[in-house]
């Protein structure tokens, strides 16, 4: 038993050492040295990050931002699928260099990692069966579906305390539960809901009522204290706003001709 404990402690120690060594590094220099930028992205969340049916490659709004950053760095881009729950541990363990996975900036997360300027702004809403929900009261005491490890879950608990929140592994699963009547609504950011609805086969049965329960500014996530890298990414984002690239990417994924038309109500600014 004593030997086992020693072994356990040793493993733990090695783990933490490796961990701190990585966290202290300078990602900007490292990425340039290894010639590749590894980005954690969503792969089942249109139009932010999803697998294109024809090319079998991950594409989307988040990916286009990373492409630009990688190009600016003069390195190759490598995409690694992450989930809402896995993205922060993956970053902290050094498996990825930056998170571009519809990540809302909030104070708790900002204690663990550093965020870039806001590159997308949305708000949390609901998908419901058509005509069923007019206000938050209609959802009181009901089951509401969302994905694990997301801010959506925390916001909805605060907005409707009587509701039961069912957290699934991802949003497509939560939407399946809605289609089968297992939950009364699926809640998360409007942009994601629009993407889910856009891809649904029976979309005329559902709607997104105009009930917003929070503001969700998305930021790119980087390791805490990685100042050089954060500065570089922020500078690049501002440049993309100035030269119209950011607007072009928005129009590509949320323009009037897409299946998820939204209005661009924000500009990338130095918003820290």
């Amino acid at each position, binding site marked *: 038993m004593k030997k086992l404990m020693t072994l356990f402690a040793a493993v733990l120690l090695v783990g*933490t*050492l490796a961990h701190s060594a990585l966290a202290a590094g300078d990602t900007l220099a490292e990425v340039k040295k290894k010639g590749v930028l590894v980005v954690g992205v969503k792969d089942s969340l249109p139009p932010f990050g999803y697998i294109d049916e024809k090319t079998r490659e991950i594409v989307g709004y988040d990916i286009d931002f990373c492409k630009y950053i990688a190009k600016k760095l003069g390195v190759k881009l490598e995409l690694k699928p992450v989930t809402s729950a896995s993205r922060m541990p993956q970053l902290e363990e050094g498996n990825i260099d930056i998170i571009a996975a519809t990540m809302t900036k909030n104070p708790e997360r900002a204690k663990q990692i550093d965020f870039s300027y806001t590159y997308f702004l949305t708000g949390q809403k609901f998908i419901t069966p058509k005509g069923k929900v007019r206000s938050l009261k209609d959802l009181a005491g009901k089951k509401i579906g969302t994905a694990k490890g997301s801010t959506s879950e925390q916001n909805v608990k605060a907005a409707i305390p009587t509701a039961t929140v069912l957290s699934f592994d991802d949003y497509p699963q939560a939407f399946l*539960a809605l289609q089968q*009547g297992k939950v009364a609504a699926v809640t998360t950011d409007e942009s994601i809901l629009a993407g889910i609805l856009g891809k649904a086969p029976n979309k005329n049965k559902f709607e997104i009522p105009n009930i917003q329960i929070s503001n969700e500014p998305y930021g790119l996530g980087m390791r805490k204290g990685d100042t050089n890298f954060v500065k570089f990414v922020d500078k690049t984002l501002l440049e993309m706003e100035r030269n119209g690239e950011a607007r072009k990417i928005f129009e590509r994924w949320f323009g009037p001709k897409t299946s998820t038309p939204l209005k661009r109500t924000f500009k990338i600014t130095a918003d820290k």
Partner: protein
Amino acid sequence: MLNYHFDWSIITSGKYFEWLVSGVKVTLELSAISIVFAFVLGLLLAVLRMSQVKPVRYIALAYLEFFRNTPLLVQIFFWYFGSYKILPQAVNDWLNNTNFEFAAAVIALSIYTSAFIAEDIRSGILSIPKEQMEAARSAGFSYLRSMQYIILPQAVRITVPPLVNQFLNLAKNSSLAMTIGVAELTYQARQVESYTFKGFEAFGAATVVYLVISSSITFLVYQYDRRVLNPHKAA
């Protein structure tokens, strides 16, 4: 050198502690109910599997092979999401208004584990000399009564160690219920982690609780074995 600041206080009191406690309750309920169903079902299946009537034997065999050889996670999704397509709408509406997540998890865990338990009990039955069955039959017991009074009471005693294994597996497998939104211990630990980013503490606490649950099951079953089933075996 340590870059990670351990903070056990967040999970030993307050909101996050309550979450974990509620998770422990759900895990205990889920495991206890499923263990009872799985054992009863497993016993029944073992007997059917050894029936003299061929079709009954084959149906039981098909059931065992089917549920033993498909992943539990797939079975959980099947009962929760897949059942929707084959059930009438009225039944679906009724199920959706109940705690169907929990029920689907109990169904999946019981049926899956019962297949393993049945095989363990069958091997217990096979280890009883067949003269006993012959003696029981010639004494006028029917096949089922011979099973009930003569064979099974002995077989179950022999089967205690493998049964404990199956109970432990079931208790640990219950963590898969989190995938369909059952707020059991692993689900709550993950919630605590995503709210506090204290993954080591949250899953550390969950690990300790699973250890306690598993050791308690082992202890209780062996106590029952020593005191009730096999008093002569006690050293």
